[in-house]
Every structure is written in structure tokens, then in C-alpha cells.
């Protein structure tokens, strides 16, 4: 299901599209312009909330970083959100070498090695380089060229109507769109959005989505298990 498909599902669930209404085929649709805008925001709000709290398989991807002699800092991919897993590291494809995060980061490193900004050698650690974009720095500053790989969670936000929702199956995407449908209802009808988490339909769809995303059968017990 793409972004546009989710918007249509929301509009149908909330009886915006009914009767003679056709499905919306572009976000520039003038007929339902206001409700389309709200539906888009309901989706992005829910998606941001969801991926901030849970790891979604769609997020995991692999990046590369090629060192340059004498260059300390390196930009991460533009869709980089965070490194995948615990104790993230850079690695050579032949798995002969790994570069782990320097514990304590730059704040500690600059106390440990006064020349960390310039000392060249084989890179042993990476650390966050605090600047206006997501960057890491290497310690030591590389003295040779290597191409490292690393696993990270990418940005799975949607913006274009054809962007695919970051879910493996149509069922997952439908359950997610149904969650967003409830948020849409709260927004359009100006309900108290702080009670959204207590909305039965919202929590029902959220648990449905979580159960669908599990790799194993959910626990068998009487009734629903809400996560």
C-alpha cells in the first residue's frame, strides 16, 4: 500500500468517500483538499510515532563509508536515522576488521588524547561529530583508504503519493492505515487527542499491526493481547 492508498483508506473509513465519490488519485485533488491534508498528517504522525518506538524491518539497510587519508569526519547517508542494533560498528566486507563506537564520545576522547583531531593512523573507533548534519568522526584520523560497511535504520517517512508504507504485507499496511484513521477522526472532529490511546478501535488496530509484524505466532490466550 502506498501513501495515497492509505489516504484513501482513511477517507473511506471515515465516510468522507462514499456515494458518488471516486477514490482520490492525487494529493492535488481539489474536491477533498482539506481532508486529504489532514489524512496525510494523520499518517505521517502515526508513522513517526510508530517507528520512533519500534523497529520496523523496512528500516534496516546497509551503508558504506570510504575513508580518505587525513579526513577525520564523514557524512552519513541522508536517510540515516540511527545505527542498527546494539554496539553499532563499521566493518570491512571481509569481516577482518571492525570499528566500534568510542565509549564516552568526543567529550571523553578529547580528554584522553589531546591530538585526536590530527593524529593519523589505522582507525580504531568512531564517535559522533556534533554538527548540523548527522556525521561521525574516526579515531585515529585515517592514513589509508578503506571502504567500510555498516547497518543502519533509514528514514521510512512518506512524502510522495507513490511512497510505499514501510510494511511487509498489505495486512500490516491496512492495520496501520486503520490506526491512522482513528487519529484522523480525532483531528477532524476536534476530539480530545489525548484520549486517542484509550480509543478501543485505535488500540485494536495497533495490536493487530503488532501481532502481524511478529515473526512468531502470538501467544494463545483468551481474548486480545494488547501491546
Amino acid at each position: 500500500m502506498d501513501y495515497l492508498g492509505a489516504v484513501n483508506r482513511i477517507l473511506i473509513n471515515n465516510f468522507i468517500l462514499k456515494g458518488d465519490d471516486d477514490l482520490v488519485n492525487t494529493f492535488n485533488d481539489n474536491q477533498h483538499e482539506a481532508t486529504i491534508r489532514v489524512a496525510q498528517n494523520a499518517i505521517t504522525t502515526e508513522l513517526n510515532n510508530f517507528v520512533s518506538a519500534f523497529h520496523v524491518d523496512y528500516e534496516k539497510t546497509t551503508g558504506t563509508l570510504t575513508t580518505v587519508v587525513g579526513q577525520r569526519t564523514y557524512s552519513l547517508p541522508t536517510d540515516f536515522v540511527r545505527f542498527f542494533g546494539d554496539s553499532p560498528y563499521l566493518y570491512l566486507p571481509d569481516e577482518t576488521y571492525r570499528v566500534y563506537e568510542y565509549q564516552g564520545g568526543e567529550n571523553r576522547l578529547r580528554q584522553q588524547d589531546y591530538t585526536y583531531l590530527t593524529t593519523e593512523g589505522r582507525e580504531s573507533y568512531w564517535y559522533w561529530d556534533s554538527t548540523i548534519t548527522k556525521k561521525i568522526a574516526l579515531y585515529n584520523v585515517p592514513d589509508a583508504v578503506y571502504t567500510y560497511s555498516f547497518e543502519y535504520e533509514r528514514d521510512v517517512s512518506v512524502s510522495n503519493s507513490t511512497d510505499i508504507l514501510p510494511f511487509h504485507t498489505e495486512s500490516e499496511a491496512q492495520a496501520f492505515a486503520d490506526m491512522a484513521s482513528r487519529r484522523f477522526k480525532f483531528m477532524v472532529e476536534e476530539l480530545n487527542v489525548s484520549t486517542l490511546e484509550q480509543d478501543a478501535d485505535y488500540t485494536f488496530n495497533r495490536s493487530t499491526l503488532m501481532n502481524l509484524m511478529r515473526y512468531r505466532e502470538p501467544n494463545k490466550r483468551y481474548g486480545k493481547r494488547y501491546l
Partner: protein
Amino acid sequence: MRLTFGAGINELNDIAIDPTEAIAGYNFELGLGNNKLKPRSPFDLLGTTPNASQITGIHQLIERNGTKSTIIMAGTSAYKWDGASFTSLGTANANSEYHSFDWDLDQTILITDRNQVDVIREWDGTTLSNLTHGITGVTSFYAKYGIVSNGRAVLANVKTDTTTNPHMIVFSAFENRQSFDTSARGGSGGFSTGDEAFYLLSPDMKPINGLTLFKNILICSTEDGQLFKLVGNDATNYQWVDFYSGSAAIGVNSMVNAGNDVYYMRQGGVIESLKSTDTFGDVGTDDISLPVRDTVKDSTGTRIVYDQTNRKIFFFLGSEVLVLFKDLLSTGKSPFSIYKADDLTLNPSAAAYIEYQTSTDKTVMWGDVQGRIFDMNGTGKGDAGQYAIETKRKLALQDVNYKSLIKGRVFYRRKGTCELSIDYEWGDERSLSGNVVPLKASSSDTGSYFGGGVYFGGNFYFGGAGASDGTPVSQGFSAVGKGTSVFVTLTVNTSEDFAIDYIEV
């Protein structure tokens, strides 16, 4: 909130008017009991005169045996028109403005000229000739107005050769349209039987600019004067007496008999009704044009035609036609709409309520400066079969109380494919926004029924035959923008028919 469209334009203010009225708009139809937003009928192009010149008169003679002949004056020619082809009948004066009235006794029509540049003509179904008038020493006899009353042909604002008598009304001899006398004053001595021809002058000596019947009483209007009525029963005692001294019509065509009433336009474009009191002679006319004061205020006269079939009165105001729906007069709401046709360069130069050539149904036909003849109640697709009709209706200010999102549904009937534009002018934020709502056409599918080759199942289900013509359906919309209040304008520009029942917001 449900928006309906049962009443017409009310320009008095833009807030405190009936919610079914519009503060502006045009080309929407009204009717008693109708709450829909519907377009006016298309103006069908029925024909164009061979000389493609300005039409100066449309006349029709229907003989007792049903034989029908329609005469079109255009430019310097007069034609007989059978609805398809034109046959020349001779000359006309291009500077004339011809009107006609029936003289059923001899199955003819008499044709007068508002501009008095052409003599009174007569059409008997075969020949278009100058009227034999019988006035001694006069060759050319002109008249602006004509009507039949009490068995006489009555001509008002006359000219004999080069002598103008704008304040004179001449009455033919009883049941003799060819005998007039401009020297025998009515009510004076010298008449033997009382059936003789005679003349009267307007009591205020002012030019006569209107002549009509009201409750079978002859009424005349004088320029910047007043209204008079004719009393008496023959040449010896006919006289004019005051009917209503409060006002008189303006222009030369500003009076019309509309069945149970007479409407006329007076100074300031005010449209008044003579039927405002049951006390005859104590008439206090009502200004029925209050709701459209802005539209008519600059009018210096108008051509008025009554469509009895559809109970509409047309006030031709140059490039637009003000339409009074008589049935709505009793509702207390505005009975006015406006017809426009910019693509046609609407500029009627003649109009008449006559029968179609192929039936006994009547309609209003009007001609324009290009020699085109149009049917006001057409059935084609668009004006002249090709131009879209823009229907517009601006609603009174809607209080929306800063609602963050306005959404609604348009409930309409499946007819033709077109688009409804909903435009918003938001208060406070003073921003503009809009929606375009598609209105779908009826389906050509025929309904499937349970039986024969069609069974309950597979591709066939009850109710699955689609939306036939007139099926009530709905489309949603949602508006971008907010404010304390909003003006909403509805526009449909199409050559298709459509009907919007109401809009739920």
C-alpha cells in the same frame, strides 16, 4: 446546515436575508416548490434571417383554421418564416421597432412602429400591406402603440404624415379596423350611433408611452406623467380618468399585461404592479423590484415580455434579462433570477410570445442584432447548441464560527457530466479557496431483473444497474480555509443539464 436554492436574488443586504435566497448570481431557474439549483433552459438558435440584419419585429398570425404564419422584420426586409426557411415579403425600415396585435375579427395582425418611421402595416396571412386607415387628407399613418379594446382598434401616440400627436389615441370605428378619424373628439357631440371612429387626448397632454389592458379596462401611461384608465362605452362618452397618479412607465416598452396583473417599470428602474389593492381606483402600487434594486436602478426602460406558459416575465436589460417568476411572488421571497449568455453576445432587439411552428405550444422568441432568432425555452445542449451556460449563485454570509475544517456533501441528480465549483471568501483571514466537485452523468445501463437470462448471482445483483437519469446521489467536499464567516459561491459552467437538490455542510 442544509443549503437549498428555492428563492431568487436579494440584493438588499448580504446577511439578513432568507437562507434560500442568493445575494448575486445568474442563469439559475426558480419555481414554486422547487428548492433545487438548476440551470435555465438553453437558448436554442432557431434560425438566422437571410440578410443577417438586426431583427426589429417578430409577429405571428394564427387563423381560425389553425393556419399559422410568422413574420420577421430584419434590417430592410420583411420575411415570412416557417421555422426553417424565410420567404421575402417586401421591405421594412431598418430603424423601426415593430410590435403587433391581433385583429381577430378579420384574421389579421396590425403592426405598429415604436419609432414611427414606418407606417402601420397589416398582415392577413397572404399579403403584408399598409393599413387602410380612412383618415381624410392623410397618406401615411403611424402609431407607436396598438391594442384591441371594446371591439375597436386603438392606436396611441400617432403621427399623420409629418404631424406628430404623441398625446393622441385614436379609436377605430366599431369592428372596423380600417376607419379612423383624427378630427372627431370622443365624448363630444356629432356622433349618430356611437360606433363611429374618434380620438382622445391624454388628460395631462403628455406623450403616451404605454397602453395595456388591466381587468379588461384600457390603461395608458404618459411620459413623466401618470396612469389613466378609459371609461365609457361608445364614442359619445368615452373619456380618460385618473387611474393612479403616483407614477407612470418609463421608456417605450415598459408595460406588460401578465395575466392577472400589469407590470411596468417607472423612474429609477422600479418595477411596479397594478394589482396591489382590491379597491379599484385606490391603487397603491407595490415595488416588486426591491430585491434587485442594484440591477435595475440605472435602467431607463426595458422591453417586457410575459411567458404565460412558464409564468415568467422577462425584462430585457441590454446584455442580460431579468426574470420574474410569478409563482414566487406569493412566497415573500425574491422571485428574480438573471439570464446571461456572454458567448452569444446577448443583445435582444425584438421579442414576442408566440407559438412554435410545429406545435401549439408557446414560447418566447427573441431576435438580435445579427438576425438570429432564439427560443428562450430551448431543449438543446448549451446556448445555440454549442455554448456552455454558466450558472452562478452567491449565498448570503455563512457563520462558521472558526470551525477548523468545513466539509460537506453535494446531493444531486445524475444527469450530465459537469463540475460544481465551490468558491469561498473567508472572513477575518480574507483568503480565497475553492473546491471542484464532479457531478456524474446518468448511466446508460438498463436495469437487470430477476428472470430470463439474469439470475441472482454472478455479475447480476438487484440494484446493480447503475444510476439512471435523475437518480439522487452525493459527492463530498472539504474546504481549505477558516474564518468567522464565509461567502460561498456556486458555479457550474456546462452545456449539460444538472440539478443539485441541496448541500449539507
